């Protein structure tokens, strides 16, 4: 309990620091952000001054930061001039697509990486182990954007199994309940829409999942190899427990802790990776919104989305720390 409290307290300076870094990024914009955002549009000096005030640019730097942090903590990021709506609304619209993609990729990565890692670790030195290890090494060396294009080239362009882009077919969108298409289409009782959404989701999710699966596999394998050497496993085997029971009860439980903490870190990589994957597959999520907004010089959206990504990552790491303690009580002692 005390440990939990310590972890939460430790998060506060990190969160504040994160806000500071995002704030500093804005300061790195060359030139006058207002002029850049207005671009070629004509604006009266009054409008420019109003915009400047709106963005808090007329204040001293320290005050600007305090006001930025205060507003960020309240979810106020100003308006997106491009969309003519509050920034947070624009992001909220795109969020379900990103959540669906990230969840699907995480489930896939866990489902591929951990079992393969267990298998490779248990069969250390066998052909299975070597094949899995080589695959994992290639997996961590693959540039994600290239993997996405290769999959697209093979499965969409050549074989026509999957669509090239988008989230679902035209007119296939089910009534929005959770805004996650897979769930909504099932709730609406429309299996055809479900499969259409699944077909669209498949390639982006696989692209995002494979590198993470590779990392998870390596970590799980290393953990299993370590655990198998431990005395308590030898003891369990000496007691005459079946191999299956030893593996399921003793090995798996102890090997999962490092896998979980790495999984949380890897979700950070997923969050960055989805900017690229969403761009490749024209997936209408927050990652693509960030890239579009950069080119549209829509800085308030970039700022808010980057902060959102970073905060989610910090919180996930905090959560992983706590989970690690639950799975592995020794370190909390």
């Amino acid at each position: 309990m005390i440990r939990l409290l310590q972890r939460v307290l430790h998060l506060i300076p990190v969160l504040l620091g994160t806000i500071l870094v995002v704030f500093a990024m804005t300061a790195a914009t060359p030139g006058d952000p207002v002029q850049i955002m207005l671009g070629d549009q004509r604006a009266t000096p009054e409008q420019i001054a109003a915009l400047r005030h709106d963005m808090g640019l007329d204040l001293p730097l320290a005050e600007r930061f305090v006001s930025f942090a205060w507003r960020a903590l309240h979810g106020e990021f100003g308006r997106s001039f491009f969309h003519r709506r509050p920034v947070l609304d624009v992001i909220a619209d795109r969020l379900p697509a990103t959540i669906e993609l990230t969840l699907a990729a995480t489930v896939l990565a866990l489902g591929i990486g951990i079992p393969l890692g267990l298998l490779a670790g248990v069969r250390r030195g066998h052909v299975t182990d070597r094949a899995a290890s080589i695959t994992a090494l290639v997996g961590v060396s693959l540039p994600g954007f290239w993997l996405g294009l290769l999959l697209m080239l093979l499965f969409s362009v050549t074989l026509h199994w999957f669509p090239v882009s988008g989230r679902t077919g035209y007119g296939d969108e089910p009534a929005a309940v959770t805004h996650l298409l897979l769930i909504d289409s099932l709730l609406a009782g429309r299996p055809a829409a479900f499969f259409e959404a699944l077909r669209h989701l498949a390639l982006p999710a696989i692209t995002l999942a494979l590198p993470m699966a590779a990392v998870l596999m390596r970590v799980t394998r290393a953990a299993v190899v370590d655990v198998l050497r431990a005395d308590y496993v030898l003891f369990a085997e000496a007691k005459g427990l079946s191999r299956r029971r030893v593996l399921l009860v003793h090995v798996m439980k102890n090997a999962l802790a490092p896998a979980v903490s790495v999984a949380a870190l890897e979700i950070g990589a997923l969050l960055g990776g989805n900017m690229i994957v969403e761009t490749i597959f024209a997936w209408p999520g927050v990652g693509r919104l960030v890239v579009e907004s950069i080119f549209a010089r829509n800085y308030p959206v970039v700022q808010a989305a980057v902060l959102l990504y970073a905060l989610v990552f910090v919180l996930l790491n905090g959560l992983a720390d706590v989970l690690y303690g639950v799975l592995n009580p020794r370190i909390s002692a």
Partner: protein
Amino acid sequence: MSASIALPEVSPAALGLRRFVSDRTSLCCTAIVLLAALTALFAPVIAPHDPSDADLLRRLQPPVWQADGTWDYPLGCDGLGRDILSRLIFGARVSLGVGFGVVLVSSVIGTVLGTVAGFARGVIDTVLSRIADVLLGFPYLVFAIGLMGMMGPGLGNIVVTLVLKEWVVAFRVARGETLGAREQDYVEAARAVGCPAWRIMGGEILPNILSPVLVVATIRMAHVIIMESSLSFLGLGVQPPSVSWGGMVADGREFLADGWWIATLPGLAILIVVLAINLASQGAREAFDPRLHR
């Protein structure tokens, strides 16, 4: 004690080198990386054509092994009729240059700060470690894309962005190793004879923590190369006429159906170099880390 046993005088570094050289995979991968580095260095001499020389008559010219391929353009041409091979050769300059440069600069910064933080402890350590925590709290690509998006594309901005994120890795390694080293007898002895702090750090601690820092630096180079190519792929990296592998893959996106080689070949180049660096650094870690040879 008899003094008759004469041990051959072999330094741990020489032993490590011997182990490294005897591993065929490591050797082969090192050769690939060196070859890529030489290609980058001598690009203007090696490249058969000017990488920016466009000619729409050669548009989507296929590689030599396909029908209509010619030896003049062995890897084919892109959508503007530019020679893929020459562009790959020039692209190696950006990928390896940024990879090497960023890792070199951030390793120096991170090692100096990490050694000072680990040796001095106190306020300096707390402040630097907090900064490191915050930077680690950012997903790598989110940080890089965000900052590049604000600063604008360009080679200089890429290096600055990646160094700002990357020094933390060397910092953590150097700090951790220094924390262990400062409790050792040789540091205690140096302190006892009145050695000034900077000489203990530079003369005693640094040589002893250098090998883990170097091993980590080689692994990180692979990572930095992927990051640079990802930024260039998104259009946030180096700008034309400079060529980068990530940018070449992006160029090929619209020609997936008619010219698969345009996006595929530069990605393959990234994969080969990154894989070779990963395997070589794995070999180096196994060869030079004394803890693995108990």
